[in-house]
């Protein structure tokens, strides 16, 4: 079982934040939260819902559902291939609310949507926020929206009580770290390496430095993503962060073995958080 760094600020539950509540629940159990990512509509909407439910039942605390997008510059080839297939299979953006509602109606997991910004802008930021909240969603993770450009989203997320998870990276300056931590709600997403998504054998020392810097800037919850694919990595990263995000490995499991494989990998990953042995 992992313990949490003394450097992390005290952590009362953030009022109204579903992501914060999920991470705090894990923290009360003495472990880091496990966050699983899948793209919506891969290979179809119902499978995404089934796989999300399977993740929730097998040890994931928080689910991240990606909107397939034509120009995913932060995604590696496994996720990009999955999203291309989802689009080819007819996925349309409003279906994201079906996926979120399908998972939240069957589980207690907090569900965040990961999306590049143009689809949200196209629908209308306020409309998107309203529909996401109505579907039971927790909020948004925005890989190509920085707080500097986010005034509309800050307003809409306040109005509908949604989390706004911004990213920080090894290259983030102290000033930007502070501004991004201040703008975030739910948690801060620490990019572990300079690069795009994809399983890596090591995420290196950069991840810990980013997490420490975010905590020092006052972030109560910092979760690490990019490159995490094994329970050993989950254990290592969960020792100094508040949550660990796994994406590519779960997408590959779904691609190769379906929902059962997702359930099995989730169980395996969750041993890294100490949950399975708690």
């Amino acid at each position, binding site marked *: 079982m992992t313990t949490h760094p003394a450097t992390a600020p005290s952590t009362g539950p953030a009022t109204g934040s579903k992501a914060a509540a999920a991470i705090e629940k894990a923290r009360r159990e003495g472990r880091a939260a496990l966050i699983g990512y899948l793209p919506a509509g891969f290979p179809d909407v119902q499978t995404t819902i089934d796989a999300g439910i399977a993740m929730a039942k097998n040890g994931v605390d928080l689910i991240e559902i990606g909107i397939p997008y034509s120009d995913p510059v*932060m995604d590696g080839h496994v996720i*990009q291939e999955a999203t291309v297939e989802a689009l080819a299979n007819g996925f349309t953006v409003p279906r994201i609310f079906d996926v979120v509602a399908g998972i939240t109606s069957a589980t207690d997991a907090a569900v965040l949507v990961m999306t590049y910004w*143009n689809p949200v802008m196209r629908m209308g930021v306020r409309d998107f926020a309203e529909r996401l909240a109505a579907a039971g969603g927790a909020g948004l993770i925005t890989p190509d929206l*920085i707080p500097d450009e986010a005034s509309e989203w800050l307003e809409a997320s306040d109005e509908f009580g949604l989390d706004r998870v911004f990213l920080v990276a090894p290259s983030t300056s102290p000033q930007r770290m502070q501004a*991004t931590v201040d703008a975030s709600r739910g948690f801060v997403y620490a990019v572990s390496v300079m690069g*795009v998504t994809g399983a890596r054998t090591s995420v290196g020392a950069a991840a810990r430095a980013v997490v420490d810097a975010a905590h020092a800037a006052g972030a109560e919850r910092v979760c690490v993503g990019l490159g995490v694919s094994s329970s050993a990595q989950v254990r290592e990263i969960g020792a100094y962060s508040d949550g660990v995000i796994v994406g590519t490995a779960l997408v590959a499991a779904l691609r190769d073995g379906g929902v059962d494989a997702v359930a099995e990998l989730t169980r395996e990953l969750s041993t890294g958080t100490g949950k399975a042995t708690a």
Partner: protein
Amino acid sequence: MHQDTGPEGTGVRAGDAIDAGAAEAFLSHDESLRHAPGPYFGSYGGRWMPESLIAALDELQDTFEKAKADPEFTAQVAELNRNYAGRPSLLTEAQRFAEHCGGVRVFLKREDLNHTGSHKINNVLGQALIAKRMGKTRVIAETGAGQHGVASATAAALLGLECVVYMGAEDTRRQALNVARMQLLGATVIPVTNGSQTLKDAINEALRDWVANVGTTHYLLGTAAGAHPFPSMVRYFHEVIGDEAREQILEQTGKLPDAVCACVGGGSNAIGMFHGFLDDREVALYGFEAGGDGVETGRHAATITLGRPGVLHGARSYLMQDEDGQTMESHSISAGLDYPGVGPEHAYLADIGRAHYEPITDAEAMEAFKILSQAEGIIPAIETAHALAGAMKVGQRLAADLGPGEKASDRIVVVNLSGRGDKDVATAAEYFDLLPDDSAEQEIAQEGEQL
């Protein structure tokens, strides 16, 4: 997938209703539009980018601002322009071509005479110097028709930088000879097989590379689009086109032109040319977009004409997108204009009414391509042929609107001849059916390949 269109389905600019306040402000004030520093042009521009790249963009912006203020840097740029690129480029009066333009006087700004054959060299020399100032050892670039890739490989060779060029796999096939040129210059060309395998996807791949290698690498973006500071920086290096053209037309005719024409994909040659005349309100500015098979067919790249504001590749601008916000695939006979976005400063100039943007079909462009070749002995790039076809329309309109006692030759149109057509000879030969049926060239060209 569909795009939003106006009441008749074509020709209504989405921006007409969007930035009416800006248009009103523009019409009622005398403020200079030149040298806008960004990050915003009206509501366009900005930085819609992953946080991982923001530090690099900050470093680039800081380096660029200091370089602009450094006389040693500006002297270096001027020296390379003069003694390497071959500037100033000529301004050539095209008297026989003018007969196809309603009889107005037509002047061609000869960017085709630059080293590497297009305006692209202006930007790459400047950015490669910036890369050196930042201590970067490697540049990456994206390219559609290959002209920016060739220019980037050239500048990298000159300044001793490693160069990697991303190019859509479809474009490497269409422009095989330019791929060979880049390789001869020492660059590595990486064909991109994602998406539509054209310019848009090459940019995505270059961005992925940049995120992973940002410590050593400068992304040498080829057009006045992307995240701040790229739109204003790329424009800065191309402003020399408009500055020279303005001085030359005054010297040769004693007055300013009635209209200035340029082709617009991302819009780098056009924004450089326009800038020389932006504050001359009496000079009409025209940008000609790729109308492909016709804007009513959906197979085109007429971004401002039929796009809607959105974000792509780091900037908010007009974008060809479907109702879900997914980027649509663009189509053009010109690989260099085959891009669904456009630089944000163009979006702003369109909204405030300072520049006008119109589509030119593949057929119209190819007709102008043939006319210029045979009237003036200049084979233009197919990109440029869009500007020439537009100039023919503008000239004819000017001639039709003459007042009493005026003659067409009182009117002057300047066209930016952004590049020469060597790279497009195979496409043109196939288009005009000039290749014998049994020739090897015909067989190759049927596939759209470069000879």
